[in-house]
């Protein structure tokens, strides 16, 4: 009989013990590949499985842990050869005991973006190959010893998309409750649970004593319908010998308390033997697992940051092109740096989540949202709220997101619910429901409540619990619909109190069309928080708004001992002099520092950012934007560049000057965008760090300097395939391409990129740079220019564009 009630958690299930350390004990050389034994020494494996089954294990992990395409590279074997062989051996033994055979999947062996170069889809593809190779030989899939949450997601997606087998996932944590990549137990539970894992567990890295508090946290947070399991090491290894010290008796003693916390399957990892498993089997076989009652918490997370929605969360609203010409221009130009700078500044101001809206007519929103999510999670650990009504865009963004995101939004229309809720379910996302439908926004609170209820119930029918539904009762502008402001707040309270859902509002809309908007925004925010608002979508860079949230948390006794408030405001004073408050006539709204005003040229040359911005503002009030660029900024940069070449000024100063110039340029761009004239560029340049290379600091320096000189730089990033460079040059028509490579191992891919650009017959010139390059090597590769530093790249650009 098969161990069919494994997943019903009606009794304890015994998992097997270590494979790798057993094989090493039996003579496998360090660094050798255990996976190949399935082909070279099947009897050895058969023996290990048999011993564990004899000891009482009822789930055996086949010898496929390291059988990823990447890890098998160079071994002379493929997953299609190794995996069926391993499963056949395990299965033939397991069946004799009515035990289950698991396809065991470990880390690919290469880090995913952004830490490494492997993209999500390639990771999914590698796992999919392993799953397809297993055919019908496995009863379940286990994904184990993971440290990267995105890799867990890739593996789970591959399982769900390529087979119908149940799937268990376990990650390896350090004693602080985080993996090497910083993923917490709770983020793992929320994310992997949401992605549909049947079991969540902890394995390897630590012994049973160290894992116990973490397993407890996992039991408290894993979704109620999942089983929780552990496979600890036999204690911690001796640093000198690598040997594990817990014997079978001690191992059992340490594992006994696990029976009380809701774990329903136990086994062992490194250093455990059939004797360890026998002890577990004898003890746990007669016990009944405790039924878990996990907290039904509304959480959202990235891999490393978890937000609990019960505590007045600030969602930054500024990644959104609506009504922002500068942002729209950045999206059209593919200027991801601008988008990222908005993220970083909101994070620095204290935002706890970021709303991400990149929809603009005429742009490919699906690929834009995917690229933006990927870029954002490389620079911020704040959980994201994907803001779109386009199902294709949401699908692409949700797929690459690492963690548990929030989708903004569905509304009460059946069409909207049916298109978007299945995506939320598949990718384990929570969802915002707007209280409007095909008839518009009801004016009465009761009618908005009715829509909210419908959304909640439909979500439930798709398997999305109420605690993952966030209702937006919709902020209407006080100037146009004054009577309905109170209805919004009333509906919010009704939803919060009666539906078991969370609430969210975009706050700033309240003041549209009225003067001194900040006053209304702060007041409305405070009222809404008091009415039960959980997530405030707002501008975190407005201090009075942040202060309202911080104050609310103090006054409602949530910020204990006012510690967050004090941390934010200790040693600060509120300035109430007329010049620094918002009550000023419009004409003098621009701050003017009294007395000595620094000239723009001097500010840039000295690398003073704030002074440069202030000076640029003054210049722009009198001059045309282009005159400011050509008459002041470029000459200033030329001067700095000349000093850099002479060696009287160094890279840090060059970069400080660049940053100051950039601050001025941002204002120039704003001025141009607000004039409605198309942005003027001195020429287009494509830059990239070549395929295989991830060193991008040099390329980024070059980009900043080139942008300073007014060139439009399309930055393709790092690890860029030759095809993408060719495509970008073709699309932009750029007459100049800059390629960077830092390693000897990546020079061949630089050469390949150059060859492909030549083969494509594109008329562009190519400049190259990077530590290991020489002018001779550059010429030999077919590059037109060798740039020894960023300054020289600007000289080359000048030569090309005149």
């Amino acid at each position, binding site marked *: 009989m098969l161990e069919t009630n494994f997943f019903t958690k009606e009794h304890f299930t015994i998992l097997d013990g270590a494979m790798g350390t057993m094989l090493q004990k039996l003579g496998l*050389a*360090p*660094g050798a590949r255990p996976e190949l034994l399935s082909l070279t020494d099947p009897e050895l494996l058969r023996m290990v499985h048999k011993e564990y089954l004899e000891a009482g294990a009822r789930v055996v992990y086949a010898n496929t842990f390291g059988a990823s395409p*990447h890890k098998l590279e160079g071994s002379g074997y493929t997953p299609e050869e190794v995996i069926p062989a391993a499963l056949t051996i395990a299965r033939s033994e397991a069946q004799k005991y009515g035990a289950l055979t698991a396809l065991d999947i470990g*880390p690919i*062996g*290469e*880090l995913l973006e*952004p*830490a*490494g*170069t492997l993209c999500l889809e390639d990771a999914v593809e590698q796992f999919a190959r392993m799953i397809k190779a297993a055919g019908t030989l496995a009863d379940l899939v286990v994904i184990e*010893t993971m*440290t990267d949450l995105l890799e867990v997601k890739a593996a789970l997606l591959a399982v769900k998309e390529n087979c119908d087998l149940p799937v268990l996932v376990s990650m*390896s944590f350090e004693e602080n409750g985080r*993996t*090497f*990549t*910083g993923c917490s137990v709770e983020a793992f539970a929320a994310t992997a649970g949401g992605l549909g894992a049947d079991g969540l567990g902890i394995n*390897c*890295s630590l012994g049973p004593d160290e894992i116990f508090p973490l397993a407890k946290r996992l039991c408290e947070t894993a979704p109620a319908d999942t089983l929780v399991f552990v496979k600890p090491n036999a204690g911690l290894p001796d*640093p*000198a010998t690598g040997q594990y010290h817990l014997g079978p008796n001690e191992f059992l003693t340490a594992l006994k308390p696990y029976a009380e916390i809701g774990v329903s399957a136990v086994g062992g990892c490194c250093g455990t033997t059939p004797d360890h498993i026998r002890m577990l089997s004898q003890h746990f076989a007669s016990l009944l697992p405790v039924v878990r009652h996990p907290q039904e918490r509304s959480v959202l997370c990235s891999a490393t940051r978890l937000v609990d929605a019960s505590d007045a969360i600030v969602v930054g609203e500024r990644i959104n092109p609506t009504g922002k010409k500068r942002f729209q221009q950045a999206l059209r130009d593919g200027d991801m*740096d601008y988008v*990222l*700078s908005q*993220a*970083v500044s909101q994070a620095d101001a204290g935002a706890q989540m970021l709303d991400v809206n990149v929809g603009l007519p005429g742009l490919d929103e699906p690929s834009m949202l995917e690229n933006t999510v990927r870029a954002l999670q*490389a*620079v*911020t650990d704040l959980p994201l709220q994907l803001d779109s009504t386009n199902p294709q865009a949401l699908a692409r963004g949700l797929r690459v997101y690492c963690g548990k995101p929030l989708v903004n939004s569905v509304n009460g229309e059946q069409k909207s619910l049916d298109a978007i809720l299945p995506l939320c379910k598949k990718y384990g996302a929570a969802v915002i429901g707007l209280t409007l439908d095909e008839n518009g926004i009801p004016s009465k609170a009761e009618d908005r409540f009715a829509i909210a209820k419908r959304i909640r119930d439909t979500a439930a029918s798709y398997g999305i619990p109420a605690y993952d539904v966030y209702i937006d009762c919709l902020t209407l502008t006080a100037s146009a619909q004054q009577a309905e402001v109170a209805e919004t707040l009333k509906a919010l309270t009704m939803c919060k109190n009666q539906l078991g859902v969370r609430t969210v509002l975009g706050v700033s809309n309240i003041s549209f069309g009225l003067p001194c908007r900040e006053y209304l925004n702060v007041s409305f925010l405070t009222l809404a928080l008091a009415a039960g608002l959980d997530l405030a979508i707002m501008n975190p860079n407005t201090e009075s708004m942040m202060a309202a949230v911080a104050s609310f948390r103090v006054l409602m006794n949530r910020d204990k001992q006012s510690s967050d408030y004090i941390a934010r405001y200790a040693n600060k004073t509120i300035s109430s002099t007329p010049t620094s408050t918002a009550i000023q006539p419009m004409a003098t709204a621009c701050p003017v520092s009294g007395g000595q005003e620094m000239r723009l040229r001097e500010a840039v040359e000295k*690398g003073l*950012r704030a002074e440069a911005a202030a000076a640029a503002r003054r210049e722009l009030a009198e001059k045309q934007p282009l005159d400011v660029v050509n008459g002041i900024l470029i000459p200033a940069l030329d001067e700095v560049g000349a000093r850099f070449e002479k*060696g009287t000024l*160094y*890279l*840090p*100063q060059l*970069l*400080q000057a*660049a*940053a100051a110039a950039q601050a001025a340029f941002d204002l120039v761009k704003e001025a141009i965008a607000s004039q409605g004239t198309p942005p003027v560029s001195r020429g287009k340049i494509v830059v990239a760090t070549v395929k*295989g290379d*991830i*060193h*991008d*600091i040099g390329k*980024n*320096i070059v980009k*900043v300097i080139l942008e300073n000189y007014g060139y439009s730089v399309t930055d393709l990033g790092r690890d860029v395939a030759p095809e993408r460079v060719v495509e970008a040059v073709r699309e932009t028509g750029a007459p100049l391409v800059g390629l960077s490579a830092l*390693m*000897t*191992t*990546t020079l061949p*891919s630089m050469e390949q990129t150059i060859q492909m650009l030549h083969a494509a017959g594109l008329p562009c010139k190519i400049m190259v740079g990077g*530590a*290991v*390059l*020489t002018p*001779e090597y550059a010429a030999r590769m077919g590059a037109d220019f060798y740039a020894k530093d960023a300054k020289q790249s600007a000289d080359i650009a000048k030569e090309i564009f005149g």
Partner: protein
Amino acid sequence: MKLPLPNEIPLEEICRGMGMPINAEPDETIKSLAQKASTLVLESAVPRMVWRLFPLAWKEDRPQLAADLPLEGRDICLHLSGCNGCVLLAVTLGPTIDLLLRRLSAGGMELAVAADAAASVLAEKIADEAEGQIRSQLPVGQFMTRRYSPGYGDLPLTVQTRLAAALDMQKAIGLAVTSSGILTPRKSVTALLGTADHPVKGHLAGCATCALRETCQYRKEGKTCAGN
């Protein structure tokens, strides 16, 4: 296993990493930039090490680690000359440093460059710390060379993948290797240290086979990166 962080990262070495010549005196803004970078990097780094002593076999004058891991190139041969064991060491500052550097790059390059330099200096300091710990554990009568890293001299970077497997680096400290032989997280060091029952000094590769030979700033100044 975790390693302790130093209290500070030497500012002059950070300035050096930012492209300042040895004799140039950094001004106050550069010093404060380096100081800020140092603080940020020390806040983000979580240094870890893993190491193991392997037997070293010599086949036709070529060193071979454990059973079947040949080490290619003239320079590593000279470095391990006279040794019968080899410590394989890997240290990393962890992925949070990479996140810091990416985040700083999104907000202007000068602090990003300073932090990148500071993290590189710190990675070497951590490797020094790790090397010191291993040296202090050597049994009496055992001697050990200094560190030698892949990519240095004519030892190819491509050997990283095999070294990673031999130490099970990803499982031990979260360190992996890309298919181009680049370590990720980026601020990481792998190194080979020969051991013997008689004093061994190892051999620094020198400039002759260095990939940076033509463009190296140290060499232009008549110095070497080994600090002499």
